[in-house]
C-alpha cells in the first residue's frame, strides 16, 4: 500500500480549515441549541418530539413551508430559465441593465420588500383589486421576486459558456428547436438548474422577514415558527424539534439533488463567450416575452420603492436622499446612513473574501476526481455539509453562538468577526455551487499534463484551474458580496451598534414613527440596491491581463 497515504492526507489537510470553520460556526452552535431542547437534567429527553409534532399549529406550519417553498421554487425555476437564456445567450441592447435589475431584489432588505409588496397589494394599493393582501399568493410572489436572481445567474452563467455547435449538430440532424432544447441543451444545463433550484428551495424554506411581513399571522413557516418559539415563548424544546425537522428535510433534499445532478457532471465544452451569443430571432419570442413579463414583475415593487423614496414632506424631490447624511428624524440612528453604508461595504469585503477562500477550497476538494467509492462518498458528504447552513434557522444558529462561543479559546460572542463570518456562511454555498460545476468540467488530465511538465500541484492549479475559475469566481464573489450587503437576519442579531450595517439601519428607520424616517429608509434601500449592483458589475469586469504569465 505504498504511496496511498500521501494524497489522502493532503486532501484531509486541505479540508481541515473549511470543516473547522463550519464546525465552530455552525455545528457547534446548532448542537448547543439542540442540546438545550433535548438534553434535560443530564439525560436525553425526546418526549418533546411527539408532543411538538402533534400540535395542529406545527402541522399547518410544516405543510405551508413545504408547499410554498416547492411551488415558489418551481415557478422561480420555470421563469428563471427563459430569462437566463434571453439575458445570457441573446445579444441585444440593454441586456446588461436587465441583468442588473434582476439582481436588485436579491439584496433588498426583506422588511423593505415586505413594505413595497404590501404597498402594492394592500386593498388601497394599485394592485389592491387583486385581493392578494395577506394571501399565500402574495408570499409566493415575494419569494419568487427575491430568488429569480439565483436561477438567472447560475443557469445564465453556465449557458453563456455552452458550446452552440452541439445544438447546431442536433438541429442539423433534424431536431426541432423544442427537441434540441429537450435533448441537448437542458441535459447540459441540468447540473446548474438543479443546483440553482436547490439553493432557491433552501432560501424559500428558510425565508423569514418576507413571510412574517406578508403572511401576517395566518401563514407561518418552520423558520418563523422557530423564531417565535425561541424569542417569544422560549420553548427551546419545540424549537429544537423543528430545527431537526429542518435539518432532516435539507439532508433529504440534498441527497435528491445530488442524485438529480448526476453522479458525474457532464464535462462541458466551454468556449469563449462571444461566440455563443447571437441576435434574437423569431424562435426567441417565447423567451423574450417571458423575460418581458418577469422584468415587469420585478420592476413594479422596485418602482414603487423608488417613487415613494422620492416623496418627502415637501412633495417630490431628493429630500430623503439629502437626509442620508443625518441620523434621521429625532436621532433615530446612532450613525448617519452613509456611515452605515461604509460599514456594510467593509463587512461585505471581509465576508466575500472569507466566503471565496473557503468556497474555493471546498469546491476544489469536492470537484477532485474520486478514487473509489469511499472517496466519492466523502466528497459528496463535504459538498452537502456546506449547503446545510442555508437550510437551518438563523435564529437557532444566532442563539447558538451566544451559548456555545462564550469560553476561551472560542470566546467569540462579541467579536467583530462574527458578522462577516455569519454572512460568509450564507454566501459559501452559493460560491461552492457556482464553482463546482466549472471545476468538474476541467479535464483532470490538464493538471496531469502540467505535472508531467514539472509543475508542482500549486503551479498546475494556477495554469489549469485558475483561468477556468476566474470568471465564474468573480461572479460568485459578486454574488457573495450581494448576499453580505443584503443580509439582515443574522446581522441584526449580531451587529454591534457602533457599526450597524445598512440593512440594520434601514430596519431601525422603518421601525420608527415619522414620515421622514420612513422616507429615509426607502431612500437608503434604493441606495443599497444601486450600490450593490454597481459593485457587482465592477467586480465582474475585472480581468487578469495576461493569463499566460503563470
Amino acid at each position, binding site marked *: *500500500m*505504498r*504511496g*496511498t497515504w*500521501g*494524497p489522502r492526507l493532503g486532501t484531509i489537510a486541505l479540508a481541515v480549515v473549511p470543516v473547522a470553520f463550519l464546525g465552530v460556526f455552525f455545528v457547534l452552535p446548532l448542537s448547543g441549541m439542540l442540546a438545550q431542547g433535548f438534553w434535560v437534567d443530564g439525560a436525553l429527553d425526546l418526549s418533546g418530539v411527539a408532543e411538538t409534532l402533534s400540535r395542529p399549529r406545527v402541522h399547518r406550519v410544516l405543510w405551508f413551508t413545504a408547499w410554498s417553498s416547492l411551488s415558489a421554487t418551481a415557478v422561480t425555476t420555470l421563469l428563471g430559465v427563459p430569462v437566463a437564456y434571453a439575458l445570457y445567450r441573446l445579444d441585444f441592447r440593454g441586456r446588461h441593465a436587465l441583468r442588473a435589475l434582476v439582481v436588485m431584489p436579491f439584496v433588498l432588505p426583506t422588511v423593505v420588500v415586505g413594505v413595497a409588496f404590501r404597498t402594492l397589494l394592500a386593498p388601497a394599493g394599485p394592485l389592491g383589486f387583486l385581493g392578494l393582501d395577506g394571501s399565500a399568493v402574495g408570499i409566493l410572489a415575494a419569494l419568487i421576486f427575491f430568488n429569480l436572481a439565483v436561477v438567472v445567474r447560475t443557469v445564465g452563467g453556465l449557458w453563456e459558456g455552452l458550446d452552440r455547435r452541439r445544438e447546431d449538430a442536433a438541429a442539423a440532424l433534424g431536431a426541432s428547436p423544442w427537441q434540441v432544447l429537450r435533448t441537448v441543451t437542458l441535459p447540459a444545463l441540468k447540473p446548474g438548474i438543479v443546483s440553482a433550484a436547490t439553493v432557491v428551495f433552501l432560501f424559500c424554506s428558510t425565508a423569514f422577514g418576507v413571510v412574517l411581513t406578508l403572511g401576517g399571522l395566518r401563514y407561518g413557516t418552520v423558520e418563523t415558527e422557530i423564531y417565535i418559539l425561541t424569542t417569544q415563548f422560549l420553548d427551546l424544546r419545540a424549537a429544537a424539534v423543528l430545527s431537526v425537522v429542518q435539518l432532516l428535510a435539507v439532508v433529504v433534499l440534498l441527497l435528491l439533488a445530488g442524485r438529480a445532478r448526476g453522479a458525474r457532471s457532464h464535462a462541458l465544452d466551454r468556449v469563449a463567450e462571444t461566440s455563443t451569443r447571437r441576435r434574437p430571432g423569431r424562435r426567441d419570442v417565447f423567451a423574450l416575452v417571458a423575460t418581458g413579463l418577469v422584468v415587469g414583475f420585478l420592476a413594479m415593487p422596485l418602482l414603487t420603492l423608488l417613487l415613494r423614496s422620492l416623496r418627502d414632506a415637501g412633495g417630490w424631490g431628493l429630500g430623503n436622499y439629502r437626509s442620508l447624511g443625518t441620523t434621521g428624524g429625532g436621532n433615530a440612528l446612532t450613525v448617519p446612513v452613509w456611515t452605515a453604508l461604509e460599514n456594510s461595504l467593509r463587512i461585505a469585503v471581509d465576508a466575500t473574501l472569507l466566503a471565496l477562500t473557503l468556497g474555493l477550497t471546498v469546491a476544489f476538494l469536492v470537484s477532485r476526481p474520486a*478514487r*473509489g*467509492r469511499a472517496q466519492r462518498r466523502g466528497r459528496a458528504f463535504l459538498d452537502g455539509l456546506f449547503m446545510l447552513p442555508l437550510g437551518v434557522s438563523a435564529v437557532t444558529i444566532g442563539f447558538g453562538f451566544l451559548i456555545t462561543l462564550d469560553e476561551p479559546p472560542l470566546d467569540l460572542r462579541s467579536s467583530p468577526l462574527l458578522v462577516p463570518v455569519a454572512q460568509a456562511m450564507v454566501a459559501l454555498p452559493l460560491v461552492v455551487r457556482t464553482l463546482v460545476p466549472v471545476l468538474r468540467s476541467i*479535464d483532470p*488530465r*490538464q493538471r*496531469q*499534463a*502540467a*505535472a*508531467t*511538465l*514539472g*509543475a*508542482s*500541484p500549486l*503551479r*498546475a492549479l494556477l*495554469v*489549469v484551474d485558475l*483561468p477556468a475559475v476566474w470568471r465564474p469566481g468573480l461572479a460568485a464573489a459578486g454574488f457573495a458580496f450581494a448576499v453580505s450587503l443584503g443580509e439582515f437576519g443574522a446581522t441584526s442579531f449580531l451587529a454591534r451598534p457602533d457599526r450597524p450595517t445598512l440593512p440594520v439601519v434601514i430596519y431601525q428607520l422603518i421601525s420608527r414613527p415619522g414620515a421622514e424616517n420612513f422616507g429615509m429608509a426607502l431612500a437608503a434601500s434604493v441606495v443599497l440596491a444601486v450600490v450593490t449592483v454597481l459593485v457587482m458589475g465592477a467586480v465582474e469586469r475585472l480581468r487578469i491581463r495576461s*493569463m*499566460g*504569465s503563470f
Partner: protein
Amino acid sequence: MLTVRDLTVRFDGTTAVDEVSLDLPTGEVLAVLGPSGCGKSTLLRAIAGLEVLSSGTVAYDDQDLAGVPTHKRGFALMFQDGQLFPNQSVAANVGYPLRLRGTPRVDAARRVAELLELVGLPGHGDRLPAQLSGGERQRVALARSLAADPRMLLLDEPLSALDRELRERLAGDLRRILKAAGTTALLVTHDHDEVWTVADRVAVMQAGRILQAGTLDEVWRAPVSGEVALLLGYPTILEGEPGQQLARAGDHGDVASVGAIALRRSALRVDPAGRLGGRVLSATVTPDVVRLKVLVEGLGEMHAVAAHDADVRIDHDVLLRVDMSRTAVLPGPAPAPRAASSVR
C-alpha cells in the same frame, strides 16, 4: 534506464496492471502495444506517478521513484489529445515548462522557436490551440513535452486521434524528432504500424500483463504465441497440419517442430513457380500491389498479393509462392477462439 518491477495497479477490486516488469535503456524508444483496455495507459500513468501503485516498483537510473511526485520525476507525459492549455497561445504552451524552470525570457523564446521548427510549425507561436488542426495540436504538445527536457518522454497513443494519412506522416516525424533529440521514450499504442515506425523495442500487453518484450526484430521474428502474433499485426495464423503444410511449401527446415505459423498479408505471392494452388475469390487494387483473397486447398481462405502485371482473374486458379520472411513460426498452438485459418 527505466526499470519497472512487478508493477500492479488495482481499482476497486479489478486489476488493471498485473505484475508488469519492463526495462528501457536510455536513448531508446519502447512501445507498449496492446488492445484498448489492456491496461497500457494505466501502466504509463503509474510510471508517471499519476496512479497509486498497489505493489511493485518504478526506478530510474537505480533511484526508486516511490514517493517522488509526478512533477519531480522529469517524465513528460503527452496525452492522446495533447491537453494543451486552451487559453494560452502556442508559444506560451510550449514555453510553459521553460517558465516553470525560470528560463530567461530571451532564451525561452529562442528555444520555443527551435522546438516549433523541430515539429514543423515555425511561426505558429501566436495562434491559440483552438485555431489549430488536430495534427498541429499534437505537434505542439510534442514540442511542449520536449521543452521540459525530460529524462524520459511518455507518449499515450499520441497519434491515434488523427486520420490515417496524417498518422503515418507524423509517426515518421516522431521517430525523427525523438532520435534527433536523443530522448528516451515510452510509447503506448494499439496500432502496430506505429510501433514499427517509431520504436526500437516493443512490449506486447494483454489483460494487464506483458506477454512478450524485446527488440522489434526479436519480437517480430519470434512471437511467443498466436495471441502475440495477432497483436503484432499478423492477420492469419495457421496451426497444426495446415501450418506444417505451409511450412513444407515454404521449404522450412524442421517442419515437424512447427506448432503454428503466423502470416502477414504479403506472405503468399502469385508466382507461376509457386507450390500452392488456389482459386481467386476477390481482388483489390492498391497503388503498390493487388490484394487478393484466395481459397487454398487444405488451408482455407488466405490473403495473398500479386504484382500489377500478374495475370489474376476472379474464379481462376493461381499458383502461390510462400515468402517465409513474411511469416513467423510459433512453437505452440494458437489460442482456441481464433482457431486455424482465421482471417482478418
